[in-house]
């Protein structure tokens, strides 16, 4: 591991502290930290040392790697690649075969106990994992070998987190998520098909800046990104509250940008940051482009029926439950802006208050 601190390395690369502060400001926003934390992030990053990351793959389509690397076209976010040492990634590295295997072992030995183990793709556990093997060993064997000496595991994408599309019925390979086989290591799930690249950046920055993984929810997802539903953060939420819904993809409601709930949007039951961070450098996200959320960051999303069946149609929570959670009309819609900066519990308390107020007036 290099002895030089990141601040010194960045200076050598003519990256000023002002650039670092700018990056930290973006990261503080991304991590839902108070903007005043930007200075602390910048200072701590400057004092940190490069973090070894070993990235292995299971049953995957390379979409997760694609989204992460595409995010690093020449943008400020690419600074993250100055903060980590990606010591093994079989798709990106030039080495192959035995040379690649040797690189993996050497990287793990050199950073024993300190490396972060990233994995994309699900694990095949049926029939000894024979359906997905590399160099004569199953993905399961490889994971178990290198998980032992990892500081923590990052399960990147819905497949690594929950099994994803390989796990879809009838699940011929016995696909499973990392957490189903590794129980004794800290795991961060970063689901999404693909996951939002800024989330991985945020997790790494949190680890480097504060020396620990970010706060996680019960599904081991970073709360900063998965603490609210797409619905909670959606800019079309006021239309939902007003009862204005598109009934088809080309009707007047669709043209007016009304809520896509009745066209099957899974935003109300999907926790992810698409509505706030968006995609392609903050350009847009599916709902902004006129299509409902597929719920791709949720477990078993592929097996939950049609993407175009409304949640009110019998899948997931019923209309009544969601209507209660939506609060009391426009007031809640406008308040959503403020709620976004509060914790989820504060939102829940607010919704509960609105619900009680509403039921009090109705009864």
């Amino acid at each position, binding site marked *: 591991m290099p002895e030089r601190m990141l601040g010194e390395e960045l200076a050598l690369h003519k990256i000023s*502290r002002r650039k670092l502060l700018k990056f930290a400001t973006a990261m503080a926003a991304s991590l839902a930290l108070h903007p005043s934390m930007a200075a602390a992030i910048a200072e701590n990053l400057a004092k940190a040392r490069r973090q070894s990351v070993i990235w292995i793959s299971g049953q995957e389509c390379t979409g997760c790697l694609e989204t992460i690397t595409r995010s690093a076209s020449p943008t400020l976010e690419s600074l993250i690649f100055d903060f980590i040492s990606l010591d093994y990634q079989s798709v990106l590295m030039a080495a192959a075969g035995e040379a690649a295997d040797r690189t993996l072992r050497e990287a793990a030995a050199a950073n024993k106990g300190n490396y972060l183990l990233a994995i994309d793709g699900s694990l095949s556990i049926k029939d000894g994992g024979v359906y997905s093997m590399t160099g004569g060993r199953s993905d399961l064997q490889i994971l178990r070998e290198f998980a032992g000496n990892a500081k923590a595991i990052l399960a990147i994408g819905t497949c690594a987190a929950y099994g994803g599309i390989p796990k879809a019925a009838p699940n011929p390979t016995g696909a499973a998520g990392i957490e189903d086989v590794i129980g004794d290591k800290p795991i961060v799930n970063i689901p999404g098909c693909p996951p939002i690249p800024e989330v991985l950046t945020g997790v790494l920055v949190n680890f480097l800046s504060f020396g620990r993984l970010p706060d996680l929810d019960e599904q081991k997802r970073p709360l900063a990104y998965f603490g609210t539903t797409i619905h909670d953060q959606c800019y079309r939420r006021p239309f939902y509250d007003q009862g204005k819904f598109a009934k088809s993809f080309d009707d007047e409601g669709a043209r007016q940008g009304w809520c896509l709930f009745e066209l099957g949007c899974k935003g109300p039951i999907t926790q992810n940051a698409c509505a706030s961070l968006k995609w392609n450098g903050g350009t847009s996200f599916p709902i902004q482009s006129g299509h409902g959320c597929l719920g791709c960051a949720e477990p078993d999303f592929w097996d939950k029926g049609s993407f175009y069946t409304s949640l009110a149609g019998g899948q997931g929570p019923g209309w009544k439950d969601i209507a209660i959670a939506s609060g009391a009309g426009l007031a809640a819609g406008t308040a959503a802006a403020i709620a976004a900066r509060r914790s989820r519990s504060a939102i829940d308390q607010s919704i509960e208050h609105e619900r009680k107020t509403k039921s009090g007036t109705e009864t």
Partner: protein
Amino acid sequence: MTTIFRAKESIGEPVSDGPAAAMADALLSELGDLLHRFLDTGEHGRIDLFKLPISPTDLLHFKDRLGRGEVSILVEAAGGSEIYETAYAGLWWVEHRDELGRVIARLIEVADAPSIVLAHRKDLEATAKTLIRSEESA
């Protein structure tokens, strides 16, 4: 000008004019609190606008309510940053972009000057060393 006057009169005082106005009212009220805190303690205040579920139209409405003041600053650090003082002294609109021109952070800072404008001590030290070296080699 009408918009600016209205904004000045309505800091902390809600006005009813649809969702966009209600959003702006709430944010202006919070900015008022931060400004008071800054005056009392010197603590810089910031509101992150990037992750708010705010439509482009509402954002423009809010921007319009804040107006534009006397100072504009262009920072070129791994992409451009547009910074200007709003019509309210000490409330700064800060928008950071990357090299491709994409917005990566958008916030309001409550301060005498935005933090990114100030030169960092480490950069000052590096400059001092460079100047000494160039003097010695001259």
